[in-house]
C-alpha cells in the first residue's frame, strides 16, 4: 500500500481525533480524503510535526495523533529523545515509513536501507514502539488509541503519492478552526 491508501483506510479512525499532519503531499492527501477542523495541516517547516504534536499533547488532555514521515523524522531526529523523556499518554506518533522523500520526487531515504526508526526510537528510550505492515495500520492505531498510552508506530509501506490538489486554505484559518476544535 502507498500512504494515500493507508490514509483512506484509517480516515474513520482519525476523524474523531486531533491530528497533526506532516508537510507536503501527506497533508494534501489527508485534506483531500477527509478534511476536518480537527486536522492541523503543516504547509511548511519540514520535520516539526512530531514536535508540534508533542507540545499539543502536553498542553491539553485530548488524544493527539501525529502523521509523520521517515524523511521528516530523519530531519528532526532530536525529537525522539524529547518524546521519550516527556511522556504524554495522549500522544501517538505514527511514522509512515515508505523509505523515500515523497513530496520531492521519491528520492530514497536511509530508512529504506540500513536505518531502523523503530530501533532508533527504542534506543532513545521510547516505550510502546510498534513496527507494523501497511495492511495492519488501522488495527494497530485503534489499539494504541484505546490503550491510552504513548505510542510510536512505524508503518512500513510502499513509496508513492496520490495526485491531490495543493491546500489553498489560509494558515491562520487552519490554525483558528483547529484551536476551536481543541477547545470544543
Amino acid at each position, binding site marked *: 500500500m502507498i500512504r494515500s491508501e493507508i490514509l483512506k483506510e484509517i480516515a474513520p479512525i482519525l476523524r474523531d481525533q486531533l491530528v497533526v499532519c506532516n508537510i507536503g503531499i501527506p497533508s494534501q492527501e489527508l485534506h483531500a480524503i477527509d478534511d476536518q477542523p480537527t486536522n492541523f495541516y503543516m504547509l*511548511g*517547516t519540514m520535520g*516539526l510535526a512530531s*514536535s508540534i504534536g508533542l507540545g499539543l499533547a502536553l498542553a491539553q488532555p485530548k488524544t493527539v495523533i501525529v502523521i509523520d514521515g521517515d524523511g521528516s523524522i530523519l530531519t528532526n531526529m532530536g*525529537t525522539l529523545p524529547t518524546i521519550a523523556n516527556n511522556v504524554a499518554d495522549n500522544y501517538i506518533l505514527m511514522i509512515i515509513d515508505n523509505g523515500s522523500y515523497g513530496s520531492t520526487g521519491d528520492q530514497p531515504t536511509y530508512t529504506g536501507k540500513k536505518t531502523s526508526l523503530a530501533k532508533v526510537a527504542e534506543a532513545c528510550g521510547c516505550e510502546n514502539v510498534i513496527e507494523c505492515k501497511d495492511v495492519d495500520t488501522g488495527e494497530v492505531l485503534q489499539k494504541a488509541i484505546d490503550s491510552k498510552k504513548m505510542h510510536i508506530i512505524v508503518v512500513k509501506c510502499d513509496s508513492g503519492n496520490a495526485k491531490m490538489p495543493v491546500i489553498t486554505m489560509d494558515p*491562520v484559518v487552519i490554525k483558528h478552526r483547529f484551536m476551536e476544535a481543541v477547545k470544543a
Partner: protein
Amino acid sequence: MDIDKRICDDLVANDISFVTTVPCKQLAGVIDEVEKRPEIFHIPSNKEDEGMGLCAGAWMGGKRPMIIMQNTALGVTLNTLATLTQFYRMPLPMLISYRGELREPVACQVEMAVHTKALLAQMHIPTYHFHWQKDVEEFDNILKYTFMCNKPVAILTDANFWGGYGDQ
C-alpha cells in the same frame, strides 16, 4: 536584584506555563529557576527549531509558551520562524543570550553576534536588547506586547546584563 527570579516572576505573572530551553552558560541561572517553578512546565529541546515546534503545539493546546536559547542558533530557526510561527501568526517570546557582545571572551561568538540584529531585522521580528540589569523592567511589557500582536519577539540579553561571563 536577582535577575533570574525577576524574569521567572514576570513569566508566571503573564501566565507563561510552557517553556522550552536550549542551554547557554549565561542562561544557566534562569534555566535553573524555570525548572524550580511549579507553575511552569519546562521541556528541554535538543535544537531550537524543535523547541519552536513544541511551543507552536503548546500554544494551540491553550498554553502560553516561551523559548530560551542562544543567538548562535538563530540561523537554524529562520525557516521555522517564517513558515510556522509567522505564517500561522503565533506568539513566541524568545529570551536569547546575546553571545559575542561586550564582555564576551570567546572570539568565535562574535561571528554570529555581528549578524544577529540584521537577521532579526530582516525577519521583521520586534527586537529588544537588554544591556543593563535595569533593562529587565521592560520584560513584563515585552511579554504583554508579544501576546497582543501574535508574533515572535526577540529579547537579546548580553553578558553585561547577566553580570559578566564567569571570571572574564
